């Protein structure tokens, strides 16, 4: 029974992997089409398949590395720092990621500010309503 469960689980995992691979393949295909239009150069099917396969495997490596980096920094969550460490090899990629990171950080800050405002407003509202309620009750 255990073996059956494991077998079923294996099947599930395998089908999951296949779905992921298919998704990657589709995305790679789309990107390649864009590039083909841009450069006026065709991509063969094998090329796209190869690229998608390589991408998939590299993603696996990335995941392992990210986990290793996070553990190395004595954290249990993968951080942007880990991602930056991962991308350090390619300068342009690193720059891009750093910029994006900054943008996201800014966004977060803004969101936090908005949230804070909202929260304060809500508090005020609630206080007002409470006061109103009190007044009403008093009345």
């Amino acid at each position, binding site marked *: 029974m255990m073996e059956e469960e494991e077998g079923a689980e294996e099947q599930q995992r395998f089908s999951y992997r296949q779905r992921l691979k298919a998704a990657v393949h589709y995305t790679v295909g789309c990107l390649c089409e864009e590039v083909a239009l841009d450069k006026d150069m065709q991509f063969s099917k094998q090329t796209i398949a190869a690229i998608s396969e390589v991408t998939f495997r590299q993603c696996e490596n990335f995941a392992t590395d990210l986990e*290793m980096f996070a553990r*190395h920094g004595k954290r249990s969550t993968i951080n942007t720092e880990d991602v930056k460490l991962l991308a350090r090899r390619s300068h342009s990629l690193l720059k891009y990621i750093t910029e994006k990171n900054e943008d996201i950080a800014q966004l977060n800050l803004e969101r936090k500010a908005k949230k804070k405002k909202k929260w304060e407003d809500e508090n005020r509202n609630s206080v007002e309503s409470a006061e109103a309620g009190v007044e009403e009750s008093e009345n």
Partner: protein
Amino acid sequence: MADNFSPDSEPTTRTLLRRVLDTADPRTPRRARSTLSGCWSLHSAQRDLLETSSSRRLRSQTKMTAKRRSHTARSVDRLARVQASGHLEEQTPRTLLKNIILTAPESSVVMPEAVVKLVPSPQVVQPSRRESSRGSLELQLPELEPPTTLAPGLLAPGRRKQRLRLSEFQQGMDWGHLSQEPRENADASSLTSSLNLTFAMPVQPQSVKRPGLARRPPTRRVVDVGTFLQDLRDTSFPMAPPGESHRTPVATVPTDIVLEDTQPFSQPLADHSPSVHHSLPCPSHSGTKEVEGAASRRTRSSGPGLQNNHSGPGKPAQLLARKVEEVDALAMGFPNTSSISGEDGVEPLQNGVGEEAEESMEESMSIREVEKAAEEQESARAEEPEGHTEVTEAVGSLGAIEAKEPEGSSEDEDTSASPQLAPSTPELLQARRLQFPEPAPPPSTAVLPSELPKRLSARIPPRPRIPGSRPRQDPYKAGLNHYAKLFSFYAKMPMEKKAVEMVENLDKYFQHLCEDLEVFAAHAGRKTVRPEDLELLLRRQGLVTDRVSLHVLVERHLPLEYRQLLIPCAFSGNSVFPTQ
């Protein structure tokens, strides 16, 4: 009775006994003895044989009863007969001889093999036989395959026959005679007596007379203590790793001695080293060279003067002690080297990288004790007039295996200032050797693992270095020249120059490894590269997996001395070395 089994051509026991039986009259023991002795009249030993044969027979009987179980079916039958006969009849020489003849055919059938076995190694059997104690002969039994399974009674004639053959062999060896009647008879009689000390006596003198078979005492050459010490001095100096002096003194002595022995490639490395070093003025480098020399791995420094310096001090222990001093001295002395060698390079470096240098120097100071990279040496030697990147490149090129933490720190060190390099380099060398199992990625796996153990184990005696010769190649790759040669050596087939150049192009890879180490350390919020960073690097390379840990790699590829220094081991008295 089993008669006429043995071939008459051989003067075997059987034939002799046959003769005796034929000639002797069946009489009372005493009379029989006298007649028998008269008939025999071959050797005094034979008389002894008759006298002791009864005792031997008794012994054999007891032995037979004792060993009856272990004998083959044939022997059992014979034994039964012998025993029965023994019990029934009086123990006359005639009956004894009869029993012998009864048992002899069994052994004779087996004999050819037994004798063949024995003849090639008579010396082995004979000395023990000469002792001729019953016990020793009994001990002999297991050695002889067929005889061992036979009853002692059976064995005795077999052994006798073997003895006879051996004695014949001896005769043949020493006297050129294959057989001599009196001697044969004597042997036969001795054989028939088979287990008597008295009969052993005649055999022994023969052996003494035969120098060919005598065991000579091993000739020992008188050891010339003076030359021995001189050799020690010559070989130990390059060996003594300076960095190890920083570790516990306990470790230094054994590593010292043992590392001297583990020099499988002292010659090739020695050849490499002179070619690799960058020439720099002698006096300035002499100081650094002293420290390096002990490491003797990367003889980047040019000056031959270091070798001379080494010859001064005495023993390895002293050398180690001196290393520590030298390290301190080098710190002072290095500014000279830097000024001489890389003035132009060092200054801009220092100017440009000032702040970084300070930080890195701090790092390097902290790390110095732990990991050092020979690359730093090389980079120092290499005169890096260019910028930081080049320094790191040189460092990268140096660190084939050691590409880890030390390299990260060494990079910083290089950028900081050469003054720091000299003292650190030997230590770095040591630490590097000690710290690094294998960093090799798949392509370089062939190179690095082979290089690593060799580098670690090989301590070349320092060779005089040619001063003044500038590096002909790119200084950052010059360090890899050493590795390229090792690589070509381990390839076990000739390598094209292009292939060797490609190996040298690995400097970028090593440089990346060094940078990685640095980044890993920074990632963990540290300024010091630690073994954890190294492990992370190896894990990324795929050398350390969930199944294979760093310690496993250390055990696999490093010699025992390094393993002792790296893997904490509990010793007696609640002491753990190295302490964590």
